[in-house]
C-alpha cells in the first residue's frame, strides 16, 4: 500500500485546514516545492497535491505552483481542486502531473471524463469521494449533496471510474482516527481505493493495509510529527512468505501409476503407495492422485488406495477422477483425501460446484480444467480430453471461482505429455482473471520449465508427472534449483 503525503495549497503556500474550514488554517511552508522534495527524500513514492483555492472557486488557481512541484520532484504526483474542463485537465496532464483528481461533480459531466480517459488513459483519472455524515459533499466541502455512498458507487461504476479517493470529511484534520467502514465499502466494490481523512497513527495505516486499500493519504499527522514517514511505509509494506508449491501427480489405472501422452499410450510407472511416500520424503508440497479409468468397478479399490496413501504421507492430498456427486466427495474425504479434483462434472453441471463448496467448504474443491488452444482462445475439453465443448476456458475459470471453487488445476491438452514446457499464455490468462490459487499443469520437461512458469505467470503451484516418475529429476533437486533462482520455496 502507498503512503501518500498531502500537500494542500492556498495562495501558493502549503497549509492544512481542519475539516475543510478555510477559517481554521495552519501555514506549514511558504514553498510547497521544498515540502515535496523533503517528502521525496524520506522515501515517499507518490504525492497528493490539492489546490484548495481551486476547489473553492471551481477553477484552477495555483496551477503554476503545482506544475513547479511536478517539475521539482522525480516521483509521480496527483492533483485535485477546481478541475472542471477538459483543457484544465490537459494542462496538468501534459505539464508533468501523473493523475488528476476530479470531484463527484464529474457524474454530471461524463463527456469531459470520457474525453480525458480516451486521450490520456483511464489510469490517469481518479475521483475524490467526500462523504460527510453519510452523504457526498462536493465543491470544497462547503456544499453538501444528498447522494448516499451506495448511490455514488453505482453512479461511478456507470461512468467507468476504477479508482477513488475516499474521505470522511467529518474526520479530516481532527487526528481522531479514520472511517474504516466507509473505505471498505469501496474496496469491496472493486475500486482501487485510496483512503483519506483522519489518519492519525501507525495502527491506522496497518488497518488500511489489512483492508486492502491501494493507498492512504496522510496530512496533519505527518506535519505534526504524529507519524514518521519511514515507519509508516514499513507498516504499509506488502509482506508474504507464502511458498510456491511443487506437486507430483499420480495418474492411476487398475491400481498402478501410469504415464502417457495426450492421455493415451499409457505405460506403467510404479506402485502408487510407494511413489507417494517417496515423493513426500523428497519434499513434495502436496500430492495429487487421479483415477483415470474411474469406472464403477474400480471405485472401491480406488478408495482403499486413497486410504493406504493417506496413512503414509503427512502433506496435503488431492484426489480426483469420476467425481459426480456430493456422496462421491464425502466418501473420498472420509478415507483421507484433503481435497477433491473435479473435472467433467463441473463443466456439465456448474451448480454441483456451488453445492459442493457450500457443503464441504471451498478449501477442498479443486476444479480441473482441460483446455486446448483454438485460434486466439482456449476451449474446454471434457472426459479426459476426448470430448470438445464450446466453453471458453477463461470464462469458465471465472465462473468456477465465483461458484466457490478453492483452486484451479489448469491442464493444457496442447502440452500434455510433450515435455515442452507449461502453456504460459493459457496460465497467464487464467491467473489474471481469478483471485483464487492456480496450479499449472501439463508440459513440464525440465527444471527450467518450472522456473519459467513461476517467473512469467502468477501461478501458485506447478505440477509434474513424467519428469518425476522417470527419475530424471528428484523433487528436492528441482526445489533447490528454484530456490537458488529466487523463487520462494519450502526446502
Amino acid at each position, binding site marked *: 500500500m502507498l503512503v501518500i503525503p498531502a500537500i494542500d495549497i492556498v495562495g501558493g503556500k502549503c497549509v492544512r485546514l481542519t475539516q475543510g474550514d478555510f477559517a481554521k488554517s495552519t501555514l506549514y511552508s511558504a514553498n510547497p516545492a521544498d515540502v515535496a522534495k523533503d517528502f521525496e527524500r524520506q522515501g515517499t513514492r507518490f504525492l497528493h497535491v490539492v489546490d484548495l483555492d481551486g476547489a473553492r472557486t471551481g477553477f484552477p488557481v495555483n496551477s503554476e505552483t503545482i506544475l513547479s512541484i511536478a517539475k521539482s520532484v522525480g516521483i509521480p504526483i496527483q492533483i485535485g481542486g477546481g478541475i472542471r474542463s477538459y483543457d484544465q485537465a490537459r494542462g496538468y496532464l501534459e505539464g508533468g502531473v501523473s493523475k488528476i483528481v476530479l470531484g463527484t461533480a464529474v457524474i454530471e459531466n461524463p463527456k469531459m471524463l470520457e474525453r480525458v480517459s480516451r486521450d490520456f488513459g483511464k489510469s490517469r483519472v481518479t475521483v475524490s469521494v467526500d462523504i460527510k455524515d453519510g452523504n457526498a459533499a462536493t465543491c470544497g466541502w462547503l456544499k453538501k449533496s444528498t447522494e448516499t455512498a451506495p448511490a455514488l458507487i453505482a453512479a461511478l461504476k456507470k461512468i467507468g471510474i476504477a479508482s477513488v479517493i475516499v474521505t470522511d470529511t467529518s474526520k479530516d484534520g481532527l487526528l481522531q482516527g479514520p472511517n474504516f467502514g466507509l473505505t471498505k465499502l469501496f*474496496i469491496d466494490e472493486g475500486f482501487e481505493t485510496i483512503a483519506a481523512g483522519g489518519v492519525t497513527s501507525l495502527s491506522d495505516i496497518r488497518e488500511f493495509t489489512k483492508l486492502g486499500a491501494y493507498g492512504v493519504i496522510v496530512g496533519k499527522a505527518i506535519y505534526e510529527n504524529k507519524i514518521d514517514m519511514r515507519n509508516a511505509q514499513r507498516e504499509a509494506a506488502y509482506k508474504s512468505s507464502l511458498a510456491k508449491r511443487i506437486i507430483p501427480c499420480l495418474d492411476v489405472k487398475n491400481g498402478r501409476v501410469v504415464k502417457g501422452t495426450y492421455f493415451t499410450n499409457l505405460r506403467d510407472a510404479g506402485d502408487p503407495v510407494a511413489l507417494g511416500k517417496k515423493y513426500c520424503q523428497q519434499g513434495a508440497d502436496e500430492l495429487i492422485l487421479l483415477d483415470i479409468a474411474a469406472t464403477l468397478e474400480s471405485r472401491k479399490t480406488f478408495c482403499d488406495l486413497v486410504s493406504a496413501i493417506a496413512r503414509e504421507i503427512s502433506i*496435503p492430498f488431492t484426489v480426483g477422477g469420476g467425481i459426480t456427486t456430493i456422496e462421491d466427495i464425502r466418501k473420498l474425504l472420509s478415507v483421507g483425501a484433503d481435497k477433491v479434483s473435479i473435472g467433467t462434472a463441473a463443466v456439465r453441471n456448474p451448480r454441483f460446484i456451488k453445492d459442493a463448496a457450500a457443503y*464441504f467448504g471451498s478449501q477442498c474443491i479443486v476444479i480441473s480444467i482441460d483446455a486446448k488452444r483454438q485460434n486466439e482462445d482456449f476451449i474446454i475439453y471434457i472426459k479426459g480430453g476426448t470430448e470438445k465443448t464450446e466453453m471458453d476456458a477463461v470464462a469458465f475459470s471465472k465462473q468456477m471461482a465465483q461458484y466457490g471453487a478453492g483452486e484451479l488445476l489448469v491442464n493444457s491438452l496442447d502440452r500434455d505429455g510433450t515435455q515442452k514446457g507449461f502453456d504460459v499464455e493459457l496460465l497467464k490468462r487464467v491467473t489474471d482473471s481469478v483471485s483464487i490459487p492456480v496450479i499449472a499443469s501439463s508440459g513440464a520437461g525440465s527444471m527450467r520449465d518450472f522456473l519459467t512458469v513461476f517467473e512469467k505467470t502468477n501461478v501458485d503451484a506447478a505440477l509434474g508427472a513424467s519428469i518425476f516418475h522417470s527419475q530424471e529429476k528428484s523433487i528436492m533437486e528441482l526445489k533447490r534449483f528454484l530456490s537458488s533462482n529466487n523463487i520462494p520455496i519450502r526446502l
Partner: protein
Amino acid sequence: MIAIINYKAGNVASVKNALERLGSACTVTSDPEEILSADGVIFPGQGRAGAALSELQKARIDTVIPRITKPFLGICLGMQLLGRFSEEDNTKCLEVFQGISRKFPPTLKTPHLGWNKAELTKKSPLTAGITNGSYFYFVHSYYMDATEDQTAGTTSYGFDFTSIMQKDNFFAVQFHPEKSGAQGLRLLTNFYELCL
C-alpha cells in the same frame, strides 16, 4: 487417551492418521463426557464457522470446551471458533481467546493456501524444538486478529497475522500440523507429550 472432537464439519481422518503415526491412543468423539475425561483434546476444523458452531451447539460441546482443563489444541477453523467472534456468517464464538476472525481483503488471493512460515513470537511448549520460520501448511479465508499477549506465532500474507495462539492450557494453530510434514509432526508430538 486424546479425544478428537468430531462435529461433522471437521476433517478428522488426517488428524487421526497423524496421531496414530506418533503412537498416540486417540478416539474420535462428540460425547461431552468423553471429551471432558480425556487426557487432551484436539479440535480440528474445516468448513464454515456458522455451520460448525451450530453442530457444536447441537452436540452440546460448545459449553464444554471453555471448561476443559487438560491440554487443548484448536486447528484452523478450530482456532477461529475459540475467538470471540467470526466475520464468517457473523458467528459468535466460544470466547476462550480474545481475537476476532476477519476476512482477508479482496486484494489478496483467497483462500490463503499453501506452505507459509511461522515466526515464533513467544516461547511456548507447543513449539519447543521447532525452528523459527519453519513452513506449515495453511488453507483458510479468514484470519484471527488476536491480542499480542495471546499470540505465540505470526505469519505474513499481505500483512502479519496470528498463526499460533496460547492461553494457559489452550493452544491453537491456524495451519494444519497434520499436513505439515516433519515440523507439523513435531508440533503434534509436543502436544501429545503435554497430555501424558
